[in-house]
């Protein structure tokens, strides 16, 4: 979706409505700030967490885990795609395995992962890899199958090696599928990461954003808790709209490949 003045205005109006309802509800029902803190105290708590650098550190930590997970997951998915391209049987077996694992939420694997990898950074990365690998593999395979037979003819006519064809023709032709896969991968890994961090607690000197939420609840810092939720929402939609929006505008929108 494009950020137009109109969509920005709509966004601002929705925010304003939420704030009015929130504050109105607090006043009318006389709710304790421990249950529903005031918007101002949430904002000031957010400001403190931002100013102290705490929340930024934790975000950075969370992103380093996601980056690692997506990197490993994407690498494995490409590897699996290449293996699948060599043998039909391998591709079919992988398709079946993917159809079993694809719907499995990463967090459901947590007990097993703890059993095998212990409680630590490694376990979270494994969960993220799981969240990234299957949707990406499924999309890459669908993309690979969708590469036009005419492109294969052109590639053969130009005497391209399989690698050259994969890089110069198959990869760009598959970009819509790659992006769709990455979108799902991001959404799943972001959710899995926060859940895992909340369950594990701090796995390093400073935890991630999930750990931030967890500690606010433990300290009954409700304003901080809502500040954390705000950050999770904002970061999630920022990545989806700004990062993916930008990548899509500069690739598939520009090429007219967005369906």
């Amino acid at each position, binding site marked *: 979706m494009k950020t137009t003045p109109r969509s920005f205005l709509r966004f601002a109006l929705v925010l304003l409505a939420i704030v009015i309802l929130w504050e109105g509800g607090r006043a009318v029902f006389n709710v304790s700030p421990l249950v529903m803190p005031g918007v101002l105290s949430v904002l000031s708590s957010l400001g403190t967490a931002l100013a102290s650098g705490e929340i930024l550190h934790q975000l950075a930590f969370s992103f380093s885990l996601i980056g690692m997970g997506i990197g490993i997951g994407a690498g494995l998915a490409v590897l699996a795609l290449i293996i699948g391209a060599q043998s039909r049987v391998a591709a079919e077996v992988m398709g079946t395995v993917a159809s079993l694992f694809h719907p499995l939420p990463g967090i459901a694997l947590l007990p097993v992962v703890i059993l095998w990898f212990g409680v630590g950074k490694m376990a979270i990365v494994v969960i993220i890899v799981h969240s990234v690998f299957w949707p990406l593999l499924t999309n890459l395979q669908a993309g690979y199958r969708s590469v*036009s037979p*005419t*492109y294969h*003819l*052109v590639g*053969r*006519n*130009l*005497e*391209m090696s399989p690698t*050259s064809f994969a890089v*110069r*023709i198959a990869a*760009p*032709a598959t*970009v819509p599928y790659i992006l769709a896969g990455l979108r799902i991968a991001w959404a799943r890994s972001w959710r899995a990461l926060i859940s895992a961090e909340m369950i594990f607690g701090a796995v390093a000197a400073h935890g991630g954003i999930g750990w931030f939420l967890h500690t606010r609840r433990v300290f009954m810092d409700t304003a901080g808790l809502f500040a954390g939720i705000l950050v999770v929402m904002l970061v999630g939609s920022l990545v989806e709209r700004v990062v993916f929006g930008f990548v899509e505008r500069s*690739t598939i929108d*520009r*090429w*007219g*490949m967005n369906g």
Partner: protein
Amino acid sequence: MADSAEALSVLNIVKRYGDHLVLPGVSLSVGAREIVCLLGPSGCGKSTLAKIAASLLEPDDGTVRVNGVPVTAPDANRFMIFQEQDQIFPWKTALGNVTFPLRLDGVPDWRARGIETLREVGLEAAAEKYPHQLSGGMRQRVALARAFAMRPSVLIMDEPFASVDASLRFDLQDLLVRLVAEHSQAVLFVTHEIDESIRLAERIVVMSDDGAVTGEHTVPIDRPRDARSPVGSRLAHALFEQLSEHPSR
């Protein structure tokens, strides 16, 4: 009929799809500086034969020769323009598409040559546009420019002017004739338009519904040609008669 030492020749090509015998043993040849049109009704096997001639499809029997040497693998010096509409890449600009094979081939002046070729097909203003911003006929000209820019010794063109208007088609036909003379290319040109074959071809090979070659005509008209000249009209009439004969199956 087919001289095997010609630039391109196909000899006794047989091709089946399952039980369907598409090509029952077809031979034809194209010399350097020669345009041979393959004329035939829809579905008679022209594209099948063209892909076999480019070694992009394996025949069940028969051989393809380039300069008399049997070949089985495709090469960029025997360049095919496909009938399929999706042969250019949507992620590359018109210029990017045209220069793609040149850059693969390591042609040093690829950029200049790409721009020059786009100009020849009347697309210099569209060089930086992406295919989805171009009309069907413009996309077809991008595919044409991509092939012309490579200056292959053999060009195999499968109905390359199908979606351009009549006057542009005339210009592109003249361009093809000029380029063939300049670069001594051999061209196998697939079409189902009688007038087009008369304007372009040194020889016209007629295929019938059952995939057999039923006739071969040299075109005795000086260039630049007028397909409506008396000789052209007579030839057109003869070709029309030949194309309307339906073989008993």
